[in-house]
């Protein structure tokens, strides 16, 4: 009985079986098509197949820092309708944005302005400190968009729960408030908790600082925020990055989002 693969006639054989392909004792990434398939030339191409009725996570946190602005703009041009948007904030819209940042900026507000969204799930649909003229708040007040308001930490954990294949979790956040309405409650070890369920999506639009060619991601400062958990929780994750570098250029100890969570990369230099 031969326990080892042996080389015979210049071909590797094993137990008398001839190998069709020579195994090499190394996985070398030579000639693979894996990386090439992830890199897109434009945001428009990267969002082209987003379909009507899709659920879409949009990264970022508040008014700026980590918002995938170029992907949002591409999606507004692409025109998919009846979308469910999962994001921390509903966006202020371009008009109000001038109050926050000189020159203003685009955010998810344009998706609402365009009438592309039927439901929003997030922790700050509209900012109480701003006038009630954000596109989402106007549409909600007109009964044209549904809102599911979720405490921010619960939102982050529901995303992680969806990413990690769990069925739900018990949190003390929301007990005694409107958040507990309609939800199962349970006392565990003497404390009251609410059952919260996972969130997943068809697509995530996120922003990172750098990607390598495999799709490993690093972020910059507070622009990390909701991007990593959304990358993990969506079926197809599309990222816009400031810089695309060759595989192996990111230190393996500092990669925040492993490449298996990233499906499409668009480089949008700042």
């Amino acid at each position, binding site marked *: 009985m031969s326990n080892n693969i042996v080389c015979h006639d210049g071909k590797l054989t094993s137990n008398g079986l001839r190998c069709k392909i020579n195994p090499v004792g190394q996985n070398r990434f030579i000639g693979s098509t894996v990386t090439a398939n992830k890199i897109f030339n434009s945001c428009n191409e990267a969002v082209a197949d987003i379909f009507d009725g899709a659920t879409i996570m949009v990264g970022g946190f508040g008014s*700026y820092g980590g918002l995938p602005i170029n992907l949002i703009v591409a999606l507004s041009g692409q025109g998919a309708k009846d979308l469910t948007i999962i994001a921390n904030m509903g966006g202020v819209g371009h008009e109000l944005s001038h109050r926050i940042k000189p020159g203003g900026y685009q955010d998810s507000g344009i998706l609402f302005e365009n009438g592309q969204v039927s439901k929003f799930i997030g*922790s700050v649909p509209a900012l109480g400190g701003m006038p009630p003229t954000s596109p989402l708040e106007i549409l909600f007040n007109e009964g044209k968009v549904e809102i599911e308001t979720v405490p921010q930490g619960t939102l*982050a954990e529901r995303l992680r729960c969806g990413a990690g294949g769990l069925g739900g979790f018990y949190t003390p956040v929301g007990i005694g408030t409107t*958040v507990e309405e309609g939800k199962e409650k349970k006392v565990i070890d003497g404390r009251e908790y609410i059952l919260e369920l996972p969130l997943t999506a068809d697509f995530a639009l996120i922003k990172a600082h750098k990607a390598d060619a495999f799709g490993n991601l690093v972020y910059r*400062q507070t622009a990390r925020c909701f991007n990593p958990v959304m990358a993990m929780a969506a079926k197809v994750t599309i990222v816009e990055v400031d810089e695309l570098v060759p595989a192996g250029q990111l230190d393996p100890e500092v990669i925040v989002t492993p490449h298996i969570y990233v499906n499409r990369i668009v480089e949008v230099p700042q």
Partner: protein
Amino acid sequence: MNDRLGEQTIALRAAREFTDGSVVNLGYGMPGLCANLIPGDKTVFFQSENGMLGYGSLATDEEKDYELINASDQPVTPLPGMCFFDSAAAFDMIRGGHIDIVVLGAYQVSEKGDLANWGRPGRPATGMGGGMDLAVGAKKIIVTMLHTTKDGVPRIVSECTYPLTARHCVSLIITDLAVMEITENGLLLKELAPGWTVPEVQALTGAKLTPAEDLKEIEL
């Protein structure tokens, strides 16, 4: 009537509660000012729920970096030893009890320490952000707020009528008129703004104030 305290003064009084080495989260609005009001001989680690621990003061116009912001969307400055993490990790810290103090704004606080700080009548689309998580998770909750609405309606009440953030969570209320502690017996009036009297402040409060034995003028 005497002057009411300004926002900077209220924030400075709140910042005086931060002990050396404490981990502090600053809520939306006025609490954010506390980051600029830490004495040089103290170390305070500011945590921000968008994924940052150990930032410094608010950024000046020249220093602004829109990828280094606190959870109120204000650009801040870096400090040695700071670190960044994602939103899920930020709320593990918060729910897990690793925040010593959170300073939050409020629409209403009840004499039992119930907090209402996110929703208000006529604005159903506004959300609670991270306020509920902070109110449940932080070891000590300080509220900084104006004592009344612009029209003089008390914001400190026997029962909140605005949507709740969490029940029985507030320890200390610092307003433009007074500093009050929430105790088992209700509101203990600890400090008054200069020139204000107990009856004057009680008249602007929607719940009974019990003056502390050592009631004094606010010290900064």
